[in-house]
């Protein structure tokens, strides 16, 4: 933005806001007017948007704090020690890492990006990104509370891990992993294993990730953790908010009754529940309770599809993926889990009787 256009843009924003406010107040006062329907829709849209945002905000904050902690108190050597060297073992560890980083699908994105910056191999990070929203103590507890110990719980965890590990392995085959990452998310990451030589020559020497790392004391480190968390919140928050706007827009436009009408076909019910998961965009920590509402009428496979695919890909979190990966990688991150979820869920529908 040049010096001249910036004030124009700021005034433009301010003017648009005042105009919108005037319009809403005037029309709102006169609810019988022809625009009353619009005001109703706007009000519904805003309520749903704020609902999604208020629900997601604490979890995103948690993720950004985790990201700050990793940046300040963690270094490359710690990662080197903890991550196994073969792609398969790496992807499995990535899939299980959520057990120690309890984050949902909003919090996992900033954390994964930070771990990539610290040199986490791509396959491990992808597997972590996809699995952590389900493979974590909070979500396991909420699924247990909703469904009890049974096939839904075990299949949710098992399928999530399986899909995350397979997707991670597909990414491990990339010979140029740095090309899949957004420029802001890569340090000197390596290929499938941490053993292979660094592929990028970016050695800026900045930050504790590179060079000699002195772990700061808590008193020194904490303000930095909070500053990083704030920056991360602004970086990721805007994508979360755009995603929430999109999700609430879809909810005010797409009639859900049409989706809920198809509850029995082995394939169509799976597709309906996947669509529902994507547009509802609810946090993985609570989605089990929502799925339970459909467990009576929808096929088991479709309820599982909701529980497995929703946490991996939904409108609000997927938009945040663009902050970590490039567009092509994001397409893979959506399509691979989608194809596998459909495959496994339809298989379950066709081959089981519960």
């Amino acid at each position: 933005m040049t010096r001249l256009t910036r004030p124009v843009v700021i005034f433009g924003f301010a003017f648009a806001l005042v105009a919108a406010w005037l319009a809403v107040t005037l029309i709102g006062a006169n609810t019988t007017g022809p625009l009353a329907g619009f005001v109703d829709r706007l009000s519904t849209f805003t309520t749903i948007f704020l609902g999604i945002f208020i629900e997601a905000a604490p979890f995103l904050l948690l993720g950004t704090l985790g990201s700050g902690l990793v940046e300040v108190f963690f270094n490359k050597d710690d990662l080197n020690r903890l991550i196994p060297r073969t792609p398969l073992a790496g992807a499995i560890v990535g899939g299980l890492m959520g057990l120690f980083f309890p984050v949902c699908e909003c919090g996992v994105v900033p954390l994964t990006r930070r771990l990539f910056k610290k040199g986490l191999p791509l396959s491990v990070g992808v597997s972590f990104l996809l699995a952590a929203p389900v493979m974590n103590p909070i979500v396991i507890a909420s699924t247990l509370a909703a469904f009890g110990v049974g096939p839904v719980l075990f299949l949710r965890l098992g399928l999530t891990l399986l899909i995350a590990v397979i997707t991670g392995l597909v990414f491990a085959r990339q010979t140029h992993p740095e090309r899949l990452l957004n420029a802001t998310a890569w340090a000197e990451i390596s290929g499938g294993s941490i053993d292979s030589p660094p592929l990028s020559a970016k050695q800026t020497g900045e930050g504790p990730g590179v060079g000699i790392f002195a772990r700061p004391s808590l008193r020194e480190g904490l303000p930095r953790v909070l500053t990083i968390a704030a920056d991360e919140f602004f970086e990721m928050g805007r994508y979360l908010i755009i995603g929430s706007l999109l999700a609430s827009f879809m909810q005010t436009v797409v009639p859900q009754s049409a989706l809920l009408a198809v509850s029995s076909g082995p394939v169509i019910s799976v597709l309906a529940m996947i669509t529902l998961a994507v547009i509802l965009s609810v946090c993985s920590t609570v989605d089990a309770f929502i799925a339970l509402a459909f467990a009576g009428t929808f096929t088991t496979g479709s309820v599982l599809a909701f529980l497995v695919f929703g946490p991996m890909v939904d409108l609000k979190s997927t938009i945040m993926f663009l902050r970590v990966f490039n567009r092509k990688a994001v397409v893979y991150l959506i399509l691979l889990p989608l194809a596998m979820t459909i495959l496994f869920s339809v298989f379950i529908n066709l081959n089981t009787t519960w």
Partner: protein
Amino acid sequence: MTPRIYRTLQALILAGLGVFLLEKIWSGTLYWYISNRFLLLTLLAALGFLILAQNILPRRRPAGAQPEHEHAEADHDHDHGEAAPAWGLFVVALPVILGLLVPARPLGAAAIANKGVNTSAPLVAGGGQTTKLDIAPADRNILDWIRAFNYASDPTTLNDQPADVIGFVYQDSRLGTGEFLVGRFAINCCVADALAIGMVVQWPEAASLAANSWVHVRGPVEASTANGQRIPLIKAESVESVPPPSQPYLYP
């Protein structure tokens, strides 16, 4: 934008988000957006926003030398000033901006157009199936009634039990004259997953009720069917206008 101004704006927006959440909690309107079990989490998030804001608000520079890490932060700021453009600040401020501009309202009859309404929803989440029948009829809300009719082995045994429910008026085009739906939204976690549920009410002056106004309906229930499903129907003896309840939604 200089790093200092950028930081100040960031701090203001974070503080704004924190105050916004606290105001929602204070005024009780938080429940228009999210289930009450998120109260503590929302409170923590509000405090988190305020702490982050306090932490990044630029300090007044002392006359003498700057502390070491303050300097490092200033360098850091500059990077981010370019990475996160001004529109990013605007977007993050959107929850507060929209919250102030658009008059806050809980989901009502107007939202049914998109969400559809259920008269026999299988909303089984939480709550045992038999316990719902233990609630005294006069204490049952719309959700309890729908469940009771879903799970009663013979719903006609519920006939003539007195219903006493509060909900919004929804004029469904599928209903006959002299009938309306008294509805509520049932919510598991936040309004994104809201499902509208309703009971058919027989009331001669149904057409005169304003859509989306709240009413208190009293009268005996009767088992009825719609599309092959058992639904409760209220033969209203009285329908009074009431103000919207402070907890607009029902929690399964």
